[in-house]
């Protein structure tokens, strides 16, 4: 059995997505906490392109980028499948995994204020509306009766985006305007593997606030 190691950061949603997938598959792994303000030689060796976590190392071979890692986990440990087996359904799942990822409006929402932030909030709302109506629909989870990689991909919303909302003082995920998403959040946070593998919310809020302060300090003139 080849060794599995995960290099992560306690506050990172991306690290947690990988943890959730490994736990759902029952894969034993060693977790290595990285100090992202003081990156280790090993981190830089394993991910020279981005110099970021998470990095999965299986039998000494490193893989970076959480979505790439998740697909690798799915293909390497097929028990408890986290993607549909049908090619078309799998394509649809991959579409929704990518949806809303790396959009500039998330950064704007976090860093900006006033009109620019309002505009970003509207764009985020628009994206979440499409996600809940067309991605989730009437399902309990994106994966149907149980969570799959699509749920995991959007699993940063409850705790992490929730902390960002609190830090900037603007709420986008209202239960009144995004009822299905709200229901999904309640259900998702109740799943054992998720519930048992989350960072402390208060600590994440403190961390997020610090990151925001630092950005604002560096960019004010």
């Amino acid at each position, binding site marked *: 059995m080849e060794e599995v190691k995960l290099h992560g950061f306690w506050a990172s949603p991306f690290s947690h997505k990988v943890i959730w997938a490994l736990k759902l598959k029952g894969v034993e792994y060693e977790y290595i906490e990285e100090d992202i303000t003081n990156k280790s030689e090993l981190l830089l060796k394993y991910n020279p392109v981005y110099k970021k976590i998470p990095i999965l190392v299986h039998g000494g071979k490193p893989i970076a980028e959480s979505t790439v890692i998740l697909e690798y986990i799915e293909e390497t440990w097929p028990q408890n499948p986290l993607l549909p087996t049908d090619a*078309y359904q799998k*394509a*649809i799942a991959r579409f929704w995994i990518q949806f809303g990822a790396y959009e500039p409006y998330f950064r704007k929402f976090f860093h900006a204020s006033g009109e620019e932030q309002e505009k970003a909030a509207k764009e985020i709302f628009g994206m979440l509306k499409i996600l809940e109506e067309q991605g989730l629909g009437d399902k309990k989870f994106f994966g149907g009766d149980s969570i799959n990689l699509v749920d995991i991909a959007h699993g940063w919303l409850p705790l992490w985006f929730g902390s960002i909302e609190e830090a900037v003082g603007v709420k986008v995920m209202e239960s009144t305007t995004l009822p299905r998403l709200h229901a999904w959040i309640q259900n998702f946070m109740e799943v054992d593997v998720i519930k048992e593998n989350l960072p402390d919310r208060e600590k994440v809020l403190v961390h997020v606030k610090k990151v925001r302060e630092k950005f604002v300090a560096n960019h004010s003139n």
Partner: protein
Amino acid sequence: MAEEVKLFGVWGSPFSRRVEIALKIKGVEYEYIEEDLANKSPLLLKYNPVHKKVPVLVHNGKPIAESVVIIEYIDETWKHNPILPQDPYERALTRFWAKFIDEKCLPALWNSTWSKGKDREAAIEEASQHLNTLENELKDKKFFGGEEIGLVDIVASFVGFWFGALQEVSGLELLTEEKVPKLCKWSYEVVNQSVIKENLPSRDKLIAYFSARFADASK
């Protein structure tokens, strides 16, 4: 069972051309529908209501959007002439590089052509770095996919072909033999692969299109 495959695309789009290349590699018969992005067809809006973009593949009435998602679907549905490797680790590396090209290289190369002032300077710097990264990744391989072209080569055809045309129009010199010799050799090899050569837009037409746009943007 009769297979019906349709592809909604745009002649100049590297994203829709990628999908055509994948279909041609697999020898899949398909109907091509050219879209006018200024006047999108009701069918396109029906098949891609979320993004309203090309390419969209419709297989037996079922639509799929997003070029790399489509190519993975094509690879899984028609299994001969594989576009992605079989080994999960090799597949992970392939996906990593395809993502790097789409999320980092393409925007930097695009912005280095079209943005202005400080933004342009920053984009040029970033684009140079990314081209060096690709140069180092190529190492001694003929293609990113090894001896045969694969997903990364198909995705990187933007670098090999479209950016060559953009450079000619903007006068930038980023993709040069001096700076990135392996990448230049690769782009020559890749563009001359018949399945790619026969499925690229006319270089003259592309240059004319970009020149007109560049002239407009400089006003």
